[in-house]
């Protein structure tokens, strides 16, 4: 029997985090009082004209680049004409014929196998206003109107829910790394539409596709794909013809629900936006922008492995972009990176989680932290002390050396000082010396405990142990 094979393509809209909107100088932000971040351009007032925010073009170049796209060096905008209350001009300025990026790909890691997902296009467009439906009325918030969007469209290269989810997660992380968006699906700064169809595995002809629009989380993407595959299989097996339609994912019922059938010949009357001249992206412009792109997660990961950091720790680092950026800063210092990575992913990560704070919002500073790692690595402080000191330097941003001085927490490493402490202990425990001489080894533990007690643990334990043995052996009873 012929197997049915899913064919999946994904369209993602990402809201960029530029300071202002794409075609006006209004502030680009989320969570403000409705209609407070607007101007006459966002409202589509008569006589207003768009001007292009260069930062949006730059973000487009970055995204096109990390998705290995060709870049359209001579591009224009187009008008997509349709009437809708959230669309203030009743046309949307978008890129139809000359997307900033096209014909790219992204490699994703599926169970340690690399799968290449084709990217057909990356283009710039403006967001619409937000509609809120209240009983019989609809309210419009134009704060969102004109926020820059980048639309990223894959080729139909995705085969199952797992790949789809990994694709989105990988893309999300990349976008976070190049700092073009906060990519929060729950706040709508990353929105996902999935196209799913089935075809016999021995055929090259694609089946009729169904679009599931505006899915609110990565796990829901997985669920809607699985649901659609099952639903469509059932229809095909029952010889029911699948219609081209738009559905949405309903979280309560864990199912996709029909929104509308796709109208044939939906006519957006696209034509080149006459208010914006052709934009020429010369090679220097593109090069300058690409040079600002930081090291990407996959490159960082392989570098960490090379540095001897284990896979679990390396993964933990790249999963937390801010922590990872902090670690990248540490790489310019001459310290033990393995120790640094370990402390970052355990103690520091723990602190951040507990206080629900981003490392950039704390007073932790790379140089200071690096010196602490160095002291720890040279046994000048113990790991227990490091843990205590860490809280202080994260909280208060205090200089590590001053902190040690201030809290008297430096480890005793001086040989003479250690010997004098040991002698004091031995003087107070003469019976233990006798016991030791008579071969009772557990006495050694007791004596070390005494040394630790006197010094409150702030002594180099290896050196202390070594010197204690030496002192004990030197007694001639």
């Amino acid at each position, binding site marked *: 029997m012929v197997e049915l094979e899913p064919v999946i393509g994904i369209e993602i809209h990402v809201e960029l985090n530029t300071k202002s909107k794409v075609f006006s100088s209004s502030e680009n932000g989320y969570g403000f009082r409705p209609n407070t971040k607007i101007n006459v351009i966002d409202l589509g007032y*008569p006589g207003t004209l768009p001007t292009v925010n260069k930062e949006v073009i730059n973000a487009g170049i970055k995204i096109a680049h990390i998705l290995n796209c060709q870049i359209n060096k001579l591009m224009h905008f187009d008008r997509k004409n349709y009437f809708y*209350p959230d669309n203030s001009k009743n*046309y949307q300025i978008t890129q139809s014929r000359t997307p900033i990026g096209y014909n790219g790909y992204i490699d994703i890691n599926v169970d340690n196998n690399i799968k290449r997902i084709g990217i057909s296009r990356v283009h710039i467009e403006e967001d619409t206003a937000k509609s809120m439906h209240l009983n019989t009325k609809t309210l419009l918030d134009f704060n969102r109107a004109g926020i820059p969007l980048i639309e990223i469209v894959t080729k139909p290269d995705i085969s199952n829910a797992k790949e789809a989810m990994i694709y989105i997660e990988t893309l999300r992380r990349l976008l976070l790394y190049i700092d073009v968006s906060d990519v929060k699906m729950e706040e709508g700064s990353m929105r996902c539409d999935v196209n799913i169809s089935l075809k016999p595995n021995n055929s090259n002809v694609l089946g009729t596709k169904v679009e599931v629009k505006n899915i609110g989380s990565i796990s829901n993407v997985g669920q809607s794909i699985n649901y659609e595959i099952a639903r469509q299989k059932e229809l095909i097996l029952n010889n029911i013809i699948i219609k081209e339609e738009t559905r949405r994912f309903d979280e309560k019922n864990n199912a996709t629900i029909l929104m509308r059938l796709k109208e044939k010949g939906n*006519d957006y009357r696209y034509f080149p936006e*006459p208010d914006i001249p052709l934009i020429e992206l010369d090679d220097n412009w593109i090069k300058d922008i690409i040079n600002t792109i930081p090291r990407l997660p996959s490159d960082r990961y392989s570098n960490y492995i090379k540095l001897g950091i284990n896979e679990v720790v390396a993964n933990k680092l790249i999963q937390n972009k801010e922590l990872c950026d902090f670690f990248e800063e540490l790489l310019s210092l001459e310290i033990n990176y393995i120790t640094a990575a370990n402390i970052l992913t355990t103690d520091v990560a723990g602190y951040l989680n507990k206080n629900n704070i981003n490392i950039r919002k704390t007073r932790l500073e790379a140089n200071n932290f690096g010196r602490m790692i160095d002291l720890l690595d040279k046994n000048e402080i113990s790991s227990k002390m490091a843990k205590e000191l860490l809280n202080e330097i994260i909280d208060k941003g205090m200089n590590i050396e001053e902190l040690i001085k201030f809290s008297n927490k430096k480890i005793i490493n001086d040989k003479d000082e250690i010997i004098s402490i040991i002698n004091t202990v031995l003087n107070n425990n003469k019976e233990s010396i006798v016991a030791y001489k008579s071969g009772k080894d557990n006495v050694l533990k007791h004596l070390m405990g005494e040394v630790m007690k006197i010094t409150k643990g702030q002594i180099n334990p290896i050196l202390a142990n070594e010197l204690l043995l030496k002192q004990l052996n030197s007694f001639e009873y």
Partner: protein
Amino acid sequence: MNKLMDLTIIEINNKLKNKEIKPIDLVLEVFDNIEKNKELNCFISLNKEEAIIKARQLEHVEVDNILFALPIVIKDNIITANLRTTAASKILDNFIPIYDAAVIKKIKAKNMIIIGKANMDEFAMGSSNQTSYYGSVLNPWNKKLVSGGSSGGSAVAISARIAPLALGTDTGGSIRQPSAFTGIVGLKPTYGRVSRYGLIAFASSLDHIGPMTRNVFENALLLNVISGHDVNDATSSNKECEDFTRLIGHDISNFKIAIPNYYMSTIIDEEIRGKMLNVIKIIENKGGTIVYVDIDYIDYSVPLYQIIALGEASSNLARFDGIRYGYQAKQYISIDEMYEKTRSEGFGEEVKRRLMIGAYVLSGENANHYYNKALKIRNAMKKSFDSIFENYDLIIGPTTTSVAYELSSEYNDELKSFFDDILTIPSNMSGNPTISMPIGFNKNNLPIGMQITANYFEEAKIYQLASLIESELNLELNPNKKEV
């Protein structure tokens, strides 16, 4: 005694400087003129209170520029803050803008006084000013005739000597054609020379704002004020500011001037051709050379215009939907019905007809058949203009094929209204600057206009030739003075 509005700008400026007159004298006379010429219907909204306040304020301000305190008329598709702006449409009948167009800011910066908003064809769609929601504008040379359009109100305000300065807009000839019909000087600058920010768009790639005045020199003065780069208009040029009067009076004996054969063909009224031949003689007498040439595709200008202008218009006018501003239908049960009723009731017949044609030429496959092909022909026409200017200084020809015609309730002759613009459309397509200036009258004492087109950003050269012809012809252009 001469009326102030019959004086030249230099004379008025001197009187202001000498304190012989005050700004308020100018303003009061203008409003008196408006009152006396009410039947011409050249205004939609007046700015009387504000103008008087402004004039009083200016009494305490030093006369610091030649256009100081001069009254100016603004076509009603140019946005003026706190002053009703309707584009002569019912759909904007209640629209009071909250910002100023770039040109209005410049005018205010020179302490000029805005006296009102001029009547026009609805959304600048028309060439006889009969599509206005506020009624037709009458021609001061013969009140049974059209003023031309779409900047008819601006043209008549100048022609009737109501005010000395006006702004018009030109998408297919809307400054030049009414200028020709009323015997005034109107310039469509180079595309990008004057910011379009705040011009209610008709066809973005063809729309221009330009000066309309009684004579050539004053036209150049007004262009000095309104031109210049604007960061709010991405299509605005960053050419340096210049003094457009600087070549006036200079010799033209080295000028090589082209006349397209098409512009002297039999589609042109014989009397108009006669006046053109007269001008040719003047130029040749002054040592200039005249050569007849052909420009590719200029005979396609009307269909080109219908496709490009109306395609763009169908998109530009989509924003008038009753949601955020303007007219909204009273009763509806769905959003679609609201759109339909608002736009059916708010737009006039000519506008609706043009929007439907525009939507049609952009729909589906039509975009390839019509719109994209039209863009190619437009480009070829542009190149043909460029090649003419490799060899010639200027191109001349008549502005219109006929003089002003009779007002009629039968203005719904859709083809007529497009063919009025057959000679003016080419320079909207190419973006070249073109002036229309009076060169005489026909046997019925109706003004005849001539166009002068220059290479991009060479408006100063246009003024150089226009001013020479103006002084050689020395016509009486005040309809109030001329005996019929």
